[in-house]
């Protein structure tokens, strides 16, 4: 098991969800909320508890952009590159984000529902609006000890 998801913790999550109809997505979300991704060691127990094949499970995990099979970086910046944000400069934000420190995952998202205050992004789960490149660059400066 991984550092943050013990065998017991996984078993508890499975127990908590297996009785629900359509349990797989809630269970995957719960696993990922605990350790940040879906570890290899979780595949067989989940597949067998929900009576699906491992291939089927991997197929579901890979279909959804939210689910990861490897550990995430320390920080995560999701930049909206959809129409409203693009019209308000998201491409410049995207360029600015390329200079992020290596401990930051940079991802694209299509709309955060914040299009009344474009361009928008999300940093470590926090919604940010009316961004500019300078503010993006300050994100990692704020993180430095």
């Amino acid at each position, binding site marked *: 098991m991984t550092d943050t998801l013990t065998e017991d913790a996984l078993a508890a999550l499975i127990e908590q969800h297996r009785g629900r*109809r359509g349990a797989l997505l809630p269970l995957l*979300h719960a696993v990922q909320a605990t350790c940040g991704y879906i570890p290899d060691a979780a595949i067989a127990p989940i597949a067998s508890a929900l009576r699906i094949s491992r291939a089927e499970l991997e197929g579901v995990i890979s279909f959804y952009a939210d689910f990861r099979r490897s550990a995430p970086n320390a920080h995560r910046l999701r930049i909206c590159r959809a*129409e409203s944000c693009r019209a308000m400069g998201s491409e410049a934000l995207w360029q600015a984000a390329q200079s992020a420190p290596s401990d930051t995952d940079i991802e694209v998202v299509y709309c955060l529902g914040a299009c*009344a205050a474009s361009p928008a992004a999300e940093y470590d789960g926090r919604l940010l609006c009316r961004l500019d490149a300078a503010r993006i660059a300050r994100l990692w400066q704020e993180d430095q000890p």
Partner: protein
Amino acid sequence: MSVRVRISEDSVACALGADDVARALAAALAVRGLTADIVRVSARGLYWLEPLLEVDTDAGSFGYGPVTDADIDSLLDAGLLQGGAHPLALGPVDALPFLARQQRLVFARAGLIRPLSLDDYLESGGYAGLKRVLETGEDAFIAELEASGLRGRGGAAFPAHIKWQGVRAQGDTERFVVCNADEGDSGAYADRMLMEGDPYALLEGMTIAALCVGAEQGYVYVRSEYPHAIEKLKQAVAHAEAAGFLGEDIAGSGRAFRVEVRAGAGAYICGEESALIESIEGKRGQVRARPPLPAVCGLFGKPTLVHNVLSLASLPVIARDGGAAFYHFGRERSRGTLALTLAGCLRRCGLIETAFGPTLGELVDDFGGGAKMGRVKAVQVGGPLGAWLTVDDFDLPLDYEAFAARGAILGHGSVVAVDEACDMAGMARLAFTFCAAESCGKCTPCRVGSVRGGEIVERLMAGSHHAADDVALLLELTDTLRDASLCALGGMLHYPVRSAIEHFPDEFTGRDTR
């Protein structure tokens, strides 16, 4: 009673600083020995004025905005709590032209109530609709629904009562009500506002629907990009259960209805109702061939009523005020009110709920105030699969059929304006990139054609030596997608692409060749 100061707790208002302003105000009040109740409410939908402070005065709710924490001292010096004069003073908020010109039925509570307060909900007419349905019976309500003229607000605008009759007609079996809260269209945020700001309205609507079609279990499928909405809904479900508005015995009727809130996982296609159903079932979110319709064979193989958030949230209004009152708004076959969300380059971006009928130009210029910089070049209505319109189309009235006749869609009501700096070929490139990224993979034209189309646009943007041929190829490709796609993701891609090419051909063919 001390003065009330209302500040929104909407996620976008908070991203713009509403929490900071609320904290700064509380601290400043303490320092000055003043008392006031800081009430965190839903958003008005006046985002260019956020953070917005509202204070009760004799003249009504008096606004200040956009406020930063640095403004708090000068606001208090100016007599904020009495509605004193200040450069940020807006006057009575209801009199702002942006609001005064609206007809808010579904968003009647926006900016006025604490989203999770069941007391606030009940005091503002909440659950009166459900009570009426319990008194008059299901058949009577379905007649009201038909009389209201309500058509689904998720995009396809299908008459609601016909879908309900389809679900009811399926013999003696379990049924489900599913709320489509996947709101993936860029530029759209009305569902988000409703879920964050008035979650009980959605739950009441689902309950009315469930009683009428005979469902005892409901699901709300919310996109994971909306964590605040998910949290609010989960709490609202718990409160409604505790108060007997959900659960085994709804409002003493002896009827049961339970609701579960489900989070999506980052797939736009799960807004398509059959993919959404697959996703709740725990599968890849792939589109199902139809027939059968979800009304016949939906979630877990059972008859399922799938509705958009705003369709469901309209039901309490229709139940309370009657179908005729709703039908009174609107025109032709587009009845009631429509929620529109202004986005992009406009001066005033926010939520408009209006009866059908005003023109696109009124939305963009009168409500939106035109572009922040320069002029509005084009407007995309109805999400990333909607057509681009220009000032030549500003006469178009908000009306499903009128938009269709112009080769455009109203969809879910998003309005994204772009200014003259916007490269329309870049927008066409985005449409293909988006389609390629979000395709469920079931049809080859959508899966492969979207990648191919993106390459052609890129070639054009770099200055193609065969620009005219490439444009013809693009149009042919989107026609193929239109004709051979199982769902509207591939099937509607021609709208944004063709309209961009038709309105702005030079931006595709007139590039410098390298």
